[in-house]
C-alpha cells in the first residue's frame, strides 16, 4: 500500500490589499502519495502558484493563509513555528524550482558556492564532502565540465543551463517532494523538452513525488499522472490525467481542451495566388556592441543574407527561437530598423523610397505585449482613430463610423471608445492593437508573437479573430512566432530561421510533418500536443 506523503485540506489564502481582505485561494485540497506526480493547470490568476507558495511559506508579504491544514507524512505542519519549518521542511523535505532561471540564482555568487550553501544548510558535513555532493548533482543534471561550472557565475550560463543548476539545487538535499512552478515556460522550445525530460528522469530515479504547475495542459498531461484544474482560486476538477483529458466534466476544462484541439487542425488549403507583394532580397543586419579601450567591439550578425517572397493574401510564418533573427526581419519589413545591405521591394518599389506615411498605409504591425504597446494616457477611441487622422482626409463623421466599424470587426462594441487601456483585459487590448493596425486597411499585417503573452483560452480567441480577418479582408499576414501550434493554425507557408539564416521554407504542413533540416526536426519534436480522442 502506498503511503500518503502530503495532504492539504481546505486551504484558504487571502490577500490584504490596503485593508481589504481578498480571498484568492478557496478551499484548496490535495492528496499526494509517495512518488506520485500531480499537475496543477490553470491560467494566470487561477491561484495555482499562490496555493503552492502557501504550502512552502513563501507567500508575498500581503498574502496569508486563512485556514486549512497541511499534513506532511502524517504530521500537521501548518501550525509549526517558522523556525522549525525552515529548518526541517523547506529545502530539505520540500524543494521548489521556479519559472525564471535568469533571476532565480544569486548573480554575485558562484554556482558552486550556492549549491554548497544549500547542502551545508541542512547537513552538518565538511566543505569537502559538500563540494563532492555539488559536483555529483551537477553531473546528475547533465551539465558538462562540472568542475569548471562550480567556479562560474550565473550570468556565464545559458537559460537552460541555469535551470539545470536550479534543479540540482532543488534536489541536492534529496527532498521527498519537488514543486516545479512553470519550470520551462521561460525557456526556448527545444530546451523545454530536454528540461522536462530531465526532471521526469530524476524524479523517477530519486523516488520523489512532484507537483508540477503549468498553464500548458498538453505539457502537464505528458508529465503527470494526475491533474488538478484550477480557475479563479477554485479547484474545478481533478483526477487521472487520462480521465480529465478524455472525459472532462467541467465546461472550463472542455474549453481549455478545445483550445488545444482547435490548434491541431489538419485541413489546409494551399494558397494559390502568386502575385508578388513583398520581395525580400539578400538582406543582412548586424548589431554592434560598444567596446571599451581594451575590449574590441563585438558584432552580432542578427540577419545574414536572407531572401524570401510574400505573395498576396497568404500567411507566412517566420519560426525560430529567441536570437534567431526573426524579429529583426520583422522590424526591417516594418521600417523600424535599417538593413545593412540587400533590398526589400514592396509592390516592386524599394521600401525605403516610401515615406513613413505611405508605408504605414501598406504595412502595419501588431506586437507581442498588449500591456505595454498601448499608451495608457489615451482612450481606445483615440488610439484606433489616430492612424486615420494622420493618413487620410476623411470627415470626422466618416472617421467615427470607421472606428466603430473596425472595433466591431475585432469583436469590441463601440462602448470601448471612451475607455482607457488599463480598464481592458489582455485579450481586449490585443483586439484594440489589431483594430488600430487594420483600420487603414493595410496590405500586410505583421504580427510579432501576437498571442505569446496571453492565456490559452484568450490565445485561441485572438487566433480565430486573425483567421477571420484574413478571410474577410484578404489581408496578407506575416506571423512571427516560436509557437508551432500557432503557426500550424494560422499560416500557409513557413520559414524556419536560426542564427540569422533561413534553414528551410515551404508549405506549413509539409514542414511540420516532414522536416528536412535537423534543427527543424528538433523544433517540431519539442511540441506537446493533446490529440483529440474520439
Amino acid at each position: 500500500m502506498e503511503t500518503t506523503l502530503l495532504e492539504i485540506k481546505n486551504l484558504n489564502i487571502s490577500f490584504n490589499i490596503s485593508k481589504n481582505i481578498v480571498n484568492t485561494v478557496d478551499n484548496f485540497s490535495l492528496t499526494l502519495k509517495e512518488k506520485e506526480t500531480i499537475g496543477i493547470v490553470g491560467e494566470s490568476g487561477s491561484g495555482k502558484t499562490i496555493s503552492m507558495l502557501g504550502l512552502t511559506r513563501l507567500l508575498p508579504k500581503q498574502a496569508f493563509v486563512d485556514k486549512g491544514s497541511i499534513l506532511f507524512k502524517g504530521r500537521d505542519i501548518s501550525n509549526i513555528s517558522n523556525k522549525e519549518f525552515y529548518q526541517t521542511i523547506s529545502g530539505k523535505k520540500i524543494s521548489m524550482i521556479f519559472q525564471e532561471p535568469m533571476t532565480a540564482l544569486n548573480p554575485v555568487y558562484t554556482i558552486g558556492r550556492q549549491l554548497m550553501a544549500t547542502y551545508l544548510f541542512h547537513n552538518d558535513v565538511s566543505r569537502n564532502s559538500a563540494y563532492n555532493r555539488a559536483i555529483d548533482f551537477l553531473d546528475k543534471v547533465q551539465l558538462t565540465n562540472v568542475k569548471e561550472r562550480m567556479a562560474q557565475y550565473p550570468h556565464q550560463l545559458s537559460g537552460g543551463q541555469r535551470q539545470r543548476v536550479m534543479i540540482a539545487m532543488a534536489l541536492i538535499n534529496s527532498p521527498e517532494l519537488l514543486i516545479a512552478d512553470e519550470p520551462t515556460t521561460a525557456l526556448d522550445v527545444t530546451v523545454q523538452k530536454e528540461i522536462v525530460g530531465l526532471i521526469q528522469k530524476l524524479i523517477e530515479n530519486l523516488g520523489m513525488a512532484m507537483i508540477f504547475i503549468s498553464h500548458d495542459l498538453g505539457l502537464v498531461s505528458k508529465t503527470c499522472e494526475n491533474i488538478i484544474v484550477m480557475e479563479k482560486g477554485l479547484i474545478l476538477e481533478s483526477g487521472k490525467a487520462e480521465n480529465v483529458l478524455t472525459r472532462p466534466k467541467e465546461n472550463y476544462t472542455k474549453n481549455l481542451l478545445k483550445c488545444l484541439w482547435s490548434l491541431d487542425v489538419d485541413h489546409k488549403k494551399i494558397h494559390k495566388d502568386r502575385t508578388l507583394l513583398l520581395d525580400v532580397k539578400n538582406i543582412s543586419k548586424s548589431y554592434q556592441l560598444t567596446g571599451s579601450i581594451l575590449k574590441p567591439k563585438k558584432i552580432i550578425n542578427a540577419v545574414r543574407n536572407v531572401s524570401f517572397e510574400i505573395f498576396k493574401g497568404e500567411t507566412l510564418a517566420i519560426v525560430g527561437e529567441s536570437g534567431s533573427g526573426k524579429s529583426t526581419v520583422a522590424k526591417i519589413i516594418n521600417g523600424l530598423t535599417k538593413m545593412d545591405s540587400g533590398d526589400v521591394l514592396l509592390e516592386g518599389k524599394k521600401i525605403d523610397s516610401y515615406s513613413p506615411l505611405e508605408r504605414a498605409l501598406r504595412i502595419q504591425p501588431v506586437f507581442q505585449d498588449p500591456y505595454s504597446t498601448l499608451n495608457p494616457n489615451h482612450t481606445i477611441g483615440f488610439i484606433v482613430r489616430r492612424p486615420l487622422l494622420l493618413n487620410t482626409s476623411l470627415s470626422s463623421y466618416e472617421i467615427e463610423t470607421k472606428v466603430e466599424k473596425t472595433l466591431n470587426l475585432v469583436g469590441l462594441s463601440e462602448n470601448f471608445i471612451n475607455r482607457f487601456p488599463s480598464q481592458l483585459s489582455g485579450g481586449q487590448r490585443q483586439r484594440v492593437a489589431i483594430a488600430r493596425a487594420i483600420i487603414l486597411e493595410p496590405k500586410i499585417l505583421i504580427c510579432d508573437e501576437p498571442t505569446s503573452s496571453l492565456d490559452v483560452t484568450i490565445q485561441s480567441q485572438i487566433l480565430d479573430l486573425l483567421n477571420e480577418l484574413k478571410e474577410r479582408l484578404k489581408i496578407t499576414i506575416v506571423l512571427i512566432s516560436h509557437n508551432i501550434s500557432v503557426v500550424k493554425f494560422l499560416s500557409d507557408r513557413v520559414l524556419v530561421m536560426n542564427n540569422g539564416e533561413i534553414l528551410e521554407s515551404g508549405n506549413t504542413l509539409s514542414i511540420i510533418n516532414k522536416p528536412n533540416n535537423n534543427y527543424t526536426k528538433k523544433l517540431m519534436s519539442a511540441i506537446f500536443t493533446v490529440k483529440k480522442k474520439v
Partner: protein
Amino acid sequence: MLKFVAGRFLVSLAVAFTISFVTFFFLNIFTDPAQAVAGEEALFEEIEQIRTQYGFDRPILTRYFEWLGGIFTGDFGVSYYWNKPVGTLLLERAPQTIKLALMSVSVTIMVAIPLGIFAALNPNSIIDRFALSVAVSAQAIPNFWLGLILIIIFSVTFPIFPVSGDKTYYHFILPSVVLGTSSVPPVMRLMRTGLLDVINSDYIRTARSIGFSGWRLVTKHALRNAVLPIISVIAVQLGHKFGGSLITESVFAINGLGRLALLSILGADIPTVQILIFVFAITFIVFNLLSDILNAYLDPRLRL
C-alpha cells in the same frame, strides 16, 4: 579581473591628464598671473617686469609642461601669497582634512548603514519612519547651524569637547559628526531601497525556499547585492570630504585644505589654487577607481 583593473587605470590616467590640462589653461588664460602677483594697484611697468621675471611671457604650453614635470618630480611650485613652496603647504594642511574626512565618513557609515538595513527589513514600521525622519532632518539642517548648536551644547553648556582647533583627535569629534550627518540621507536611503529590492528578488525567494531566514538570509544572500550601489556613493562622499569642507573647517577653526583653498582663492594665488584643484580632482578619480574595482570584485557581472 586584471584586465578590468588595467583598463580602468588607463581611463583614470587619461581623465587626470585632461583635468590637469584644463585647470592650468583656464587659470592662466582667464586670469593674468603677473597681475595676480603684482597686486591690484600695481603699475603697468611693474606687471610687465614681473611677467618677464617669473617667465609668464613664455608660451603657455611650455609653462604647462614645466608645471606638469614639476608635479612628477615633487616640485609643486611656490606660493606667492604664502611665500612657501606649495608642497609644504599641502603637507601642513592635508593631515587635518584627511582625519576629518575619514572620521566623518565613518560616522556616516555607522549611522546610515544600520539604519538603512533596519528600515528595509521592517518597511513602514516605526523604525522605518524614524529612519526617514532622521534622513529628512539631516538633509534640512545646514552644516554651520548644526556645528554651532553642537558647540553650544557639548562645548559650552556641557564642556565635554573642545570648542575649536585641530590639535588632538578629540578636537575632530564634533566636526566629524557635523560633516558625517550631512551624508547620512543619501547613503541611508540607498541602503534601504537597495536592500528592499534585493529582498523582493527571485534569488532571495530561492534562498528562502531552501530554508534560509532571518539574519542569515540577509548577511549571506542579500547584503552583498545591496551594498554594491552604496560603495559608489561612499566613494563620492569621500571625494567630497577630501576636498575639505570650507564651512565646517571654518566653524571649528581647523586648518585644513578647505580653508587653504578659500584663502588662496581670495589671495589670487594661482600656483596654490591650481595644485589644489588638481589634487581634489585626483582624489575623486582615485576613490572612483577604487570603488569600481571593489564593485567588480563583489559583482562578477561588472568584470567584463
